[in-house]
């Protein structure tokens, strides 16, 4: 397999090139998986951590906050490590995390980014559980697209029906989010 340079990987993640995403998985997932398995996690945890690390890297690339001073793998591994440490803290596992804590120093904006990512992941997870119509109505209306166009695109009678449905869908989404114990936990952690 041809090795990609760090810049090529970052560009691939930025444009969501599936070949690059597959490459990242093939090249690096096994090591991340071993790390998580060796530190009280399972394969599903490893997949979650790996996925969220890529999302955080994507967010940083988009915000132009990412300048690599090390290899891509070193950076990816450091993000996975931080994410897993936070998970362990939440799970309050009685394990020795001293070694894990080495090297972990985070700038303030990174703490905020991790918190935001965790919250938004929860919101987006529940959003994807709504009906396709709800998803479409919510996504179109928050873009400030005139309601009459939204009505046309979604098969509603008029702008007022779209507005009513939007309220209904958003209320439903809020209810599901609030009933998720993870939400309460995130809110309490952030106080």
């Amino acid at each position: 397999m041809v090795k990609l340079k760090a810049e090529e990987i970052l560009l691939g993640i930025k444009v969501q090139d599936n070949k690059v995403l597959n490459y990242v998985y093939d090249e690096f997932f096994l090591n991340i998986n071993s790390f998580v398995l060796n530190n009280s996690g399972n394969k599903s945890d490893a997949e979650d951590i790996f996925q969220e690390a890529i999302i955080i890297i994507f967010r940083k690339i988009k915000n132009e906050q990412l300048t690599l001073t090390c290899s891509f793998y070193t950076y990816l591994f450091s993000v996975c490590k931080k994410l897993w440490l936070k998970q362990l803290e939440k799970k309050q596992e009685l394990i020795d995390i001293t070694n894990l804590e080495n090297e972990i120093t985070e700038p303030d904006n990174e703490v905020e980014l991790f918190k935001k990512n965790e919250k938004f992941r929860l919101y987006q997870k529940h959003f994807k559980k709504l009906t396709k119509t709800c998803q479409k109505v919510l996504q179109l209306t928050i873009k400030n697209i005139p309601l009459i166009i939204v009505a046309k695109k979604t098969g509603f009678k008029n702008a007022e029906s779209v507005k009513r449905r939007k309220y209904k869908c958003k209320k439903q989404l809020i209810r599901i989010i609030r009933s998720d114990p993870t939400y309460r936990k995130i809110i309490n952690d952030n106080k």
Partner: protein
Amino acid sequence: MTSSNFEIIERDINGELSKEEAKWVKNRIKTNFQFAEEYKLQLEIDEAISENEIIDLRENLKNIFEQKTDSKRGIIRRMISFDDYVRPAVAAAVLVALVIAGILLFSTSKNYTNNQLFTMNYESISAISNTRSVNNNSDQLMKNAFQLYEQKQFIEAIEIFKNYESDKLVQFFLGISYIEIDQYQNASFVFSNILNDNNNLFTEESRWYLGLCYLKLNQTQKAKDIFNKIANSNSINKIKAEKILKSL
């Protein structure tokens, strides 16, 4: 969450409150923790669900994980079941299935002309009654133009729409009006201009109609480029574009 809180917060986020109401909300956020939390949640949800790229990326990654896991399972399954005795039978069955699939595919795929594809996909669109974009007091002329449009007096509407070059909403309806009177070349110019400025709300729809114009103008390669772009995006017209591409 109380229903009244929800609605007043929503209206504040959308800029629909009077000055007094907005002031009340601002004050309430400062003095009532629960209200402030509800407000923050509603705002954050809007931001989170507008992150199309992140939602897509998460979905992509999930698919990659599933494919990798499936391919590993597939290898194991093949190792278990494909012994020397069953292999010829399975191979024959696969061959028969492929032949049937081929026949079905051949018989169901249909070639449409560009003109037919246009007719199958073009829908006229109703004009805006949304007052956010058309200010009642300041622009009676524009309102008149939309009324003319609604009454299908497209030539008269075009004459007015043409004066609002910087208003992408009006330009969008100018493009549609040209289509309605069969001036596809003019329509394609208008939609291309809208697309040149990425920072507006009508790029997605303009791209779709531009593709349809190219179909009508028989500029197949240009149409393909446009529909490919739509098919590779998260556009609401993605599936329709994919279907058109299959016929092109």
